[in-house]
């Protein structure tokens, strides 16, 4: 009897422990998936220009440097654009809401141009690309959270024809 109780208790404790472990794991995993070094790496807000061609790249706070992942995305865009020669695009640069308005306008422009330069390096003519900055004016996620801000720091490639 005593033995039985013990094993039941042990099982309960084991179950409880593993539940905690799993939930801890899943939160840690979720955060890890969403941002790496302050740059959004998730897919929640991403749309696609074609199958397997994401439309946007993300940036760290106050930065306009392209990450390895962003360059990968832009190479896919370049390949797609080279295949679809009649397509023209606008690169829309954005900033999060945690900066002054005017600086953010400049920052959005710098981000979109970083993406433009990369597309041009991979053979897309600059004549097919227009750049516009919206600064902090058009958040894709209106929440005031670090996750939302990371989704809003972006350059989005939009088909214009």
């Amino acid at each position, binding site marked *: 009897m005593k033995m039985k109780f013990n094993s039941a208790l042990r099982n309960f404790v084991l179950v409880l422990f593993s539940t905690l472990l799993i939930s801890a794991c899943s939160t840690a995993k979720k955060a890890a998936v969403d941002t790496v070094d302050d740059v959004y790496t998730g897919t929640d807000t991403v749309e696609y220009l074609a199958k397997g061609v994401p439309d946007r790249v993300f940036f760290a706070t106050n930065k306009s440097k392209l990450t390895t992942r962003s360059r990968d995305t832009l190479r896919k865009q370049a390949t797609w654009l080279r295949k679809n020669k009649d397509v023209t695009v606008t690169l829309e640069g954005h900033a999060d809401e945690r900066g*002054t308005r005017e600086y953010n306008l400049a*920052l959005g422009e710098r981000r979109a141009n970083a993406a433009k330069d990369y597309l041009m390096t991979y053979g897309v003519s600059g004549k097919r690309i227009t750049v516009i900055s919206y600064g902090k004016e058009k958040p894709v996620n209106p929440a005031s959270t670090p996750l939302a801000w990371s989704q809003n720091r972006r350059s989005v490639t939009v088909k214009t024809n």
Partner: protein
Amino acid sequence: MKKIIIILLFFIFSVQNANSLIKVDITRGNLDPLPIAVSPLHIDEKSEDLKGLKEQKLGEKISKIVERNFKSTGLFNPLKKDAFVQKPDIAHIKPRFEDWRLIKAQALVTGKILVKDKKLKVEFRLWDLTAAKEMIALSFTTTPTNWRRVAHIISDKIYERLTGETGYFDTRIIYVSETGPKDQRIKKLAIMDQDGHGTKYLTLGNELVLTPRFNPTNQLVTYMSYFKNMPRVYLLDIETGIQEVVGNFPGMTFAPRFSPDGKKIIMSFAKDGNSDIYSMDMETRKVERITEHSSIDTSPSYSPDGKYIAFNSDRSGLQQIYVMRSDGTQVKRVTFGKGLYGTPVWSPRGDLIAFTKVRKGRFYIGVMRSDGTGERLLTENYYQEAPSWSPNGRVLIFYRETKSDSKGKGFSAKLWSIDITGYNERMIKTETDASDPSWSSLLSK
């Protein structure tokens, strides 16, 4: 908008020697505001009837505006009218000083209104009750529809007499009106009197508009618009409503401001990922490049003498404030504190620069001397930026945004003001949410 009205101003009596009279010190936070009684202006019996304007109420309305102006400064404490001890007409001729002193008033404003030949004549006097002396007596003649401005001008004259500084009540604010959800904001240019009255919308909201700023005569406004999805600096004539693009730039222009003589617009032009500062001469249309640096240079603001420009740049790696000569030479970084610094705006007095500071996720409005020394942070919040000076350099207006929840709810943008003493922080009521305020100079100088 109507033509600038002409207001005739007479000194009825010469202002008496002021040495021993009341003086309100506005250089420090005032914890003991001056008790002041503003008697309703009485209506002269010879007044004509006025269509649409109940002049019987006009005297009271004007006195209420004066009271509200005084209260908004934090320097004065307007007393309740039900305690008043003398009828307005008699008080205006000769107040019984000892009676007014009984209700603890130290200063008294009295006045008289006469409507004749479709003109409004307003007379007012300011009395020092302790010294039992008249401090100022003035009269104005104007068109009756300008009665609100008369109230503001009276407020300015009294403020000036009591503080020794020019007033800021006969002024307007231009700002961006905001409506709709945070991710689909509709923005319009709006203009209102300094006290929030008489809001007019100058654009329809079809395109995004940002950062309106007055020229020195308050007739023109330069701002940024996304008209036809081309973000450019525009010029708007408030009277005619005519708008035009400023300059012929092959890319985004933004962050415009007038030079203190009104002859130039200074702004940023972004090209190939690099924003630099340019100016354009309004008459010759000649464009001059002022900074040439691979970093972001923006938010330029001239010193009141036009000799210097303050701006923010991230050439050090982070956004900081710099000052240079207005031809672009002698660039000097002036902020070295921890955090980011942006939106420098030179005080109309020339001594201070107001700025936005971001540190550890908090936003501050502050002031410092133009060489960057003597930094004082006036207010801290979740998000606030873009200070603009009252014409006398005593008060800053700025906008503040609130945090929103995971669905973007709970977001608001409002105008706030604060004295450069750090006291008297107040929300400015606007019909809609509001941002990017710009304070006019005095409308009547």
